[in-house]
């Protein structure tokens, strides 16, 4: 597969985002199976007759060739490789949200192969109309874990097992602790934490509380700059 370390061929990739570059080119943010996030220049991709113009769309698995030693590589080829995935309506909006999260949180040129596979499953889940909130919660948790942030859900700070009907305070970087111990973080029911650790999101209260927890944790790691795609969702509901 790899001819030299600077030239990669037939790599499975998703396109997270593209933006115009010079007169006729694009910069594409790829999420690749083997190399994580990679930025490439697609030369001439904005010309009317460009063969890859129509392919540079998000939410499709593509096969890409690229080369280059610097952070910004050159895209040398792109091909369709899997069944066309169609994201419609709110599922499409969720897709944008996933992509924005990844662009904001994933560093470039570090492999996240397991996350790539999970992203792939998530896009498929969105395309077949699975319940959006649940799909998003699973992905958010997986993303934070892939980035190396320990989100401990089955034990409290002192490694005691979580008690389902106890209310805890959950603080980023620390985990769950007794309500009396700190004012930081957010209040959360033990059952929600246990449900999340078991990947069980059917309970309405779990859905609601896990959303608050993930919003708090992502906010902690994202900083002050808001997510554009989330605003669009809010506008759409209102």
């Amino acid at each position: 597969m790899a001819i030299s370390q600077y030239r990669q061929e037939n790599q499975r990739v998703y396109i997270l985002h593209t933006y115009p570059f010079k007169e006729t080119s694009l910069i594409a943010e790829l999420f690749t199976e083997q190399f994580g996030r990679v930025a490439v220049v697609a030369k001439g991709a904005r010309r009317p007759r460009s063969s890859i113009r129509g392919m540079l769309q998000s939410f499709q698995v593509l096969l890409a060739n690229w080369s280059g030693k610097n952070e910004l590589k050159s895209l040398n080829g792109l091909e369709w490789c899997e069944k066309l995935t169609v994201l419609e309506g709110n599922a499409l909006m969720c897709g944008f949200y996933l992509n924005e999260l990844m662009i904001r949180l994933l560093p470039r040129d570090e492999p996240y192969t397991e996350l790539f596979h999970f992203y792939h499953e998530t896009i498929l889940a969105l395309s077949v109309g699975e319940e959006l909130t649940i799909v998003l919660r699973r992905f958010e948790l997986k993303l934070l874990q892939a980035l190396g942030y320990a989100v401990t859900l089955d034990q409290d700070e002192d490694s005691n097992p979580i008690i389902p009907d106890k209310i805890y305070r959950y603080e980023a970087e620390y985990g769950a602790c007794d309500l009396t111990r700190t004012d930081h973080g957010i209040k959360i029911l033990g059952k929600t934490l246990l449900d999340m650790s078991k990947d069980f999101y059917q309970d309405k209260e779990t859905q609601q509380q896990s959303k608050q927890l993930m919003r708090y944790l992502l906010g902690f790691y994202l900083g002050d700059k808001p997510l554009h795609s989330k605003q669009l969702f809010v506008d759409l509901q209102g």
Partner: protein
Amino acid sequence: MKNTEALEQLVDALRCLPGIGPKSALRMAYHLLQHNRKGAAALSSAIANAIEVLGHCSLCNNFSEEPICSLCASNDRDASLLCVIEMPTDLIMLEQTRSYDGMYFILMGKLSPLDGIGPKDIHLDRLLKRLDTGLIKEVILANNFTVGGDATAHYVSELLKSRGIKLSRIARGLPMGGEIEYVDSGTLAQAMIERKTINH
């Protein structure tokens, strides 16, 4: 060598064009000053004039010298059909087909969630105001088939849901004279998904 202030200003001004960096701007400035001073004067007065007289048509949002553009003012168009498009160039292309005789609304852009281009940037308030007139019976979405175009179409359709107006989106599939052997897989897959029933 330090450029004179006037030259400096010209170069800076030219850089507001998309894709023009400092070098190209300097080359353009020299060309205008050295070889084509007449052209430069015409360019400057044309820009000044356009800025002065061109506004947006209050109906279709296209650029227009009048409050209502000639297309919207025309009596030959079907005022019950409204085609929503992204850019003025799309209008020119659709007019070239000579197969649509309704009205237009130009969004002047598309949603791009990751670039922070939201609903407020694509004049949806004006579109809604247009629909409030009650003349429109069908809205045709002619957004691009890109993820941004899909997002825009979805957003507009959500806005119109409660208004009881017929809503459609232009079809997609193989191009005119398209041969299956030479068409790209994405288009072909889409054509298969959105195939049309011939007998009922």
